C-alpha cells in the first residue's frame, strides 16, 4: 500500500524521536517556515506588544508578522485597538514601520481616511452612492492581559488563552504594567530558526557557562539539575535552595502574591508557564548586583523582595520584578532569522538619571540577549550541517524542551500537517 501524507512536512514530523531535538528540516526548511508562520503565528495567540507601546491617544505602532501588518493604536477614548495595516481601497500599507502619532489613519496612496476605530470617514472621488459603511479597516482579535497585548490572526482563536488570562491577570495586577513606560528597547536579529530561539530560552543548562551577568540574580537550578552530577557541596546547596523555595513560595502566597508554578505546556493550544522565582544575591532585581535599578517601584508594589514573576509563551518571555520588567517578543523573519524584541519597563513616572540608571537597568539582559544570539547562531549553523543528527535532551534540565517539541509536533498535526 502506498503511504500518503497530508504534506511533505508530515513525514518529517513523524521522524521526531521522543526526548530528542527536532529533525533538521523542521529548523531549516522554507516550507516548514511558512507552515510555522501559518500555524503558530496566525492560528495561535501571540504576544505582539504592550499597552504602554501606545501610551497616549493618537499613538500608533506597526508590528509585522510574516506578511501580516498590524497596527496597535490608542484611540481618542483611550482604548487600545489593533487593526490590519491594509487599506480597504487597493490594499496599500497605511502606516510605515515603527511608531507614529496620528489623528486619523490616512492611506498615503489616495487618502482614504479612517477614524481611529477603523471606520472609513472619508474617501474622495468615490461618488455619492459609495457605501463607506462596509469599508472599515479590518480589526484583529486581541486581548490585553494585564497590559500585555495578545493577538490571534485567525477567526477561531484558541479558547484556552483563558487559563493564561486567569493566572496572569491576578499575578500582574500589583505591577500595573499598563502604567509603565518603555525605558529601553533592543531589537536583536538572531541568525537562527525561531524554535532554536525559544528552546534556548527554555533551559538554563547553558546559563552557568554563558551568562555570568544573569547568574548573579538568576538561579539556574530552578530549571532542573541532575543531583548525581553535582559535587556533594553543590548538592547540599541545591537541597537548601529547594527547601528555601518551598518556604518562600508559601510565605509569598500567604502575603497574597500567587507564586506557585502554573503550566499549560502539552495537550493544549496555548502554551505558557508562570512561576514566581527567587532572585539570588541581594534578591531584588535582575541587575549586576541584584539590587533594584529603579527606586520608583512598579504599580502598587511596596516591597522589593517579591522575586521575579516569569512568564513564557511560545513567542515571548517575561520577567516582572518589583522595580522593573523585561518583556521579550519573538518574531520569525525567515527560516534562519528571528527578531528578538526586548523592552525594559519602569513605572511611567520614573525619570531616567533620577529614579533609575539606564545602564544598571539594562545591563544584564542586554548582555544575556547578545550571548543568546551567539548561541542560537552557533546552534542553527550546526543544525544546517549534514552531519547533524537530533540529540537527546537532558532529562533534568531540558524537560521543558521535550515538552515544547511535543507540543510543536502536536499543533502542526492538528493543523493538517
Amino acid at each position: 500500500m502506498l503511504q500518503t501524507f497530508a504534506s511533505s512536512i508530515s513525514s518529517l514530523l513523524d521522524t521526531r524521536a521522543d526526548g530528542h531535538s527536532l529533525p533538521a528540516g523542521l529548523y531549516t526548511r522554507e516550507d516548514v517556515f511558512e507552515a510555522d508562520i501559518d500555524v503558530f503565528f496566525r492560528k495561535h495567540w501571540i504576544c505582539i506588544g504592550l499597552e504602554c507601546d501606545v501610551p497616549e491617544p493618537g499613538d500608533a505602532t506597526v508590528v509585522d508578522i510574516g506578511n501580516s501588518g498590524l497596527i496597535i493604536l490608542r484611540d481618542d477614548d483611550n482604548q487600545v485597538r489593533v487593526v490590519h495595516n491594509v487599506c480597504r481601497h487597493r490594499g496599500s500599507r497605511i502606516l510605515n514601520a515603527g511608531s507614529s502619532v496620528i489623528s486619523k489613519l490616512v492611506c498615503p496612496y489616495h487618502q482614504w481616511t479612517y477614524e481611529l476605530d477603523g471606520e472609513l470617514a472619508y474617501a474622495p472621488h468615490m461618488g455619492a452612492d459609495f457605501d463607506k459603511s462596509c469599508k472599515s479597516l479590518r480589526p484583529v482579535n486581541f486581548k490585553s492581559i494585564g497590559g500585555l497585548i495578545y493577538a490571534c490572526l485567525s477567526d477561531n482563536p484558541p479558547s484556552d488563552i483563558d487559563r493564561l488570562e486567569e493566572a496572569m491577570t491576578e499575578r500582574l495586577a500589583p505591577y500595573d504594567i499598563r502604567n509603565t513606560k518603555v525605558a529601553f528597547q533592543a531589537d536583536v536579529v538572531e541568525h537562527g530558526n525561531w524554535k532554536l530561539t525559544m528552546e534556548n530560552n527554555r533551559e538554563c543548562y547553558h546559563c552557568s557557562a554563558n551568562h555570568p551577568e544573569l547568574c548573579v540574580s538568576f538561579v539556574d537550578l530552578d530549571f532542573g539539575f541532575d543531583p548525581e552530577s553535582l559535587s556533594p557541596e553543590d548538592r547540599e546547596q541545591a537541597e537548601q535552595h529547594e527547601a528555601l523555595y518551598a518556604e518562600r513560595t508559601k510565605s509569598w502566597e500567604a502575603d497574597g502574591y500567587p507564586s506557585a508554578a502554573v503550566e499549560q505546556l502539552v495537550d493544549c493550544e496555548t502554551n505558557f508557564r508562570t512561576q514566581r522565582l527567587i532572585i539570588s544575591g541581594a534578591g531584588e532585581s535582575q541587575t549586576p548586583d541584584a539590587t533594584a535599578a529603579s527606586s520608583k517601584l512598579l504599580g502598587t508594589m511596596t516591597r522589593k523582595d517579591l522575586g521575579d514573576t516569569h512568564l513564557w509563551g511560545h513567542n515571548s518571555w517575561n520577567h516582572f520584578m518589583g522595580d522593573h520588567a523585561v518583556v521579550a517578543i519573538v518574531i520569525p523573519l525567515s527560516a534562519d532569522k528571528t527578531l528578538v524584541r526586548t523592552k525594559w519597563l519602569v513605572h511611567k513616572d520614573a525619570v531616567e538619571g533620577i529614579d533609575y540608571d539606564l545602564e544598571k537597568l539594562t545591563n544584564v539582559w542586554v548582555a544575556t540577549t547578545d550571548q543568546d544570539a551567539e548561541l542560537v547562531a552557533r546552534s542553527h549553523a550546526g543544525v544546517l550541517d549534514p552531519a547533524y543528527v537530533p540529540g537527546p535532551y537532558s532529562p533534568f534540565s531540558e524537560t521543558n524542551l521535550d515538552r515544547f517539541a511535543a507540543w510543536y509536533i502536536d499543533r502542526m498535526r492538528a493543523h493538517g500537517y
Partner: protein
Amino acid sequence: MDTKIVHPSSSNRNDAWDPERDDTVVCIDVHQETHDVKSFTFASPQGKWFAFDSGQYFLFDFPLGPDAESRCYSISSSPQRTSTFTVTVKRVAGGKISNWLHDKLASGTTVKAQGPLGHFVRPRGAGRKFLLLSGGSGITPVMSIVRDLADTCEPTDVVFLHAARTPKDLIFREELSNLAGRMKGLRLHFLPEVVAGEPSWAGLTGRISPEFMKLAVPDIAERIVMCCGPAPFMAAARKISAELGVPASSYIEESFDAAVIDETQLSIGEVVTARSFEVEFLKQARTIDVAGEQTVLSCAKKAGLRIPSSCANGVCGTCKSRLVSGSVDMKHNGGIRQREIDAGLFLPCCSKPLSDLVIDR
C-alpha cells in the same frame, strides 16, 4: 413664511427649550440699535424657557431661496432673562443674510434654530478680573456677559473696551453708559477709529495699540481677556495683550467670524481694507500674499505652490505642515492633534493667517 404672531403662553412656563429636540423659534421683536444694526428677539412658540450661558450663540437656518442658509449669531441678551433671547446683527453691504434679516425678518417670523452652542463663556471663580474687548458687532457675546453681570449683581471687576468705526457705530452705547453708572465694578472705554459724524467726541480715537492699552487698562496683565471682533482686530488684540504680559491661559477669544462678518459677500470697501499677510514657503523659496479671510492652502494653490492635500476640510491631515513662525486661525475637523499643534504643526487647508507666516514647505 409663517406670519402668525405667537406669544409665549404662560401655561408652559416650566418647559425648558431642549436643544436636542426643539428647533423652531419665533421672532417677537425687532429693534434698531444703530443706523445699520438691529436686534432680533426670539421666543419659543411653545413658550419654553431658554438656558444658555452669556457668550454662547445659536445656529439659524434662514429660509432664503430654495436652500435654507445657515448662520451663527451670538446671543446679546442676558441669560437671566430666560423667556427670550436676542441676537444683534449688523447690515453688511451686499451681505445676503444680513440684508434678508434687516429687510424681511419681522415680528411673527418663525425660523429654525439650533443651540445654544459655543464655549466662549467666562471662567467662574471668585476674585477674577476681566477685560472684555470687542470690535464692531463682535460686541454681542460680551454684551451678554455684561448684562448677565448687571442682572445678577455679582461683585465684578470688569473693564469693557469697545472699538468701532465711528461714534455712530458704537452699539449699545447708551445702555452701556447707564450700566457703567450703576455697576460698581464696571469701567467703560469706547474707542472709535475716527470722529466722523460726531465732531464733539470727547475721547480718544484710533485703533487699539499697546500705548492705548497701557493707559486704558494698566493692570491688563492681571485680567482675563475675552475678545470678539473681526479677525484683524482679534489678531492685533492678541498680540498687544501678549506683549503687555497677559499669559496665553488668560486669553480667550471667540474665533467665530460668522457672528461678526457676513462673509458671503464682502462689500468692495471691506475687501480693500481686509488685511493681507505675507506667507513664505521656505522649501519652495516663494512668498505670496494671503488675505486674512482666505485659507493658506487655497491661496497657495492659486499661486501655483504645491502642498499635498486631499479633503481641504481639516479631516485627513494630508496637508499637515510645519509653521515656522506666525499665527493662524485654524478650524480643523480632527485632522491634527493638540500635541502636534503644540509641536508647531498646522493644517493649511483650514487655516487663515492672523499674521505673516513662514511655512516649512
